[in-house]
């Protein structure tokens, strides 16, 4: 006796549920672990899950960029900073104030409940699509309608690189 194989549509749904599970598990590890390096590992798992969700949202290009930029650049930068700056045997949380944990949970829960209420009880207007949203369309938009923003973001990134170099270099000799 064999189990019935899931159909194609069901398989997509199962993969989607797995992606949501991966995302939420990663976020939970990131905010709840004792050590910083485990937080970074959790946030990497969370980013990969979110990249899967982007894939479900018809945008494989953004999913690829998510993995490339967040996992490949940001998370690696954070782990370098942990290696450079975090002292050994360091606990990332402790009895700073006994009220911090419960108040944090309460505020986060209130935020989540409010946002979820808004999301569920609002009738979002649906418009017809005017193009396919493919990589070609994104490239055309980036070089025509959003060319100014594109150049500005390049300047911001350049200034950020220079600023990071200047800040991290100061006081290195002593």
């Amino acid at each position, binding site marked *: 006796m064999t189990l019935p194989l899931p159909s194609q549509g069901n398989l997509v749904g199962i993969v989607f549920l797995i992606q949501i599970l991966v*995302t939420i598990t990663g*976020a939970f590890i990131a905010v709840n672990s004792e050590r910083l390096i485990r937080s970074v590992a959790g946030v990497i798992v969370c980013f990969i899950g979110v990249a899967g*969700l982007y894939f479900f*949202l018809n945008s494989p290009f*953004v999913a690829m960029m998510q993995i490339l930029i967040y996992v490949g650049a940001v998370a690696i930068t954070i782990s370098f900073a942990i290696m450079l700056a975090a002292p050994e045997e360091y606990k990332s949380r402790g009895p700073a104030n006994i009220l911090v944990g419960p108040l944090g949970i309460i505020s986060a829960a209130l935020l989540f409940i409010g946002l979820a209420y808004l999301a569920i009880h609002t009738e979002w207007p*649906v418009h017809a699509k005017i193009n396919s949203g493919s990589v070609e369309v994104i490239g055309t938009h980036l070089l025509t309608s959003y060319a100014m923003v594109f150049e500005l973001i390049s300047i911001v990134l350049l200034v950020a690189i220079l600023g990071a170099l200047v800040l991290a270099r100061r006081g290195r000799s002593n």
Partner: protein
Amino acid sequence: MEILNLYNSLNAYLLVAALLFAMGIYGLVTHRTLIGMLISAELILCGASLNFMAFNRFTAPDPAVGQIFALFIMAIAAAEAAIGLSIVIAIYRNYKTIDAEDLVKLNG
């Protein structure tokens, strides 16, 4: 089945994004080190980005705009991480700690 069709509903994505945002706020409040706070801020940005992408897929007329917005959020997040981490390293050189509770020199 209803639960296996969840990937076609806007609410599922919005709820996941709200949960990411709330977890980021919780981590921002409870983490004691500056790097932990930065990680939580990345979670918050990720939740906002997911929200944009969900509305982009389900309601917006031009499905390229939301993707471009998400790309810009990623660029801003990368710049923020670079600047924030170099500030953290500079603080560690001067104070020998990255605990937010210990950085009280201006407290008086």
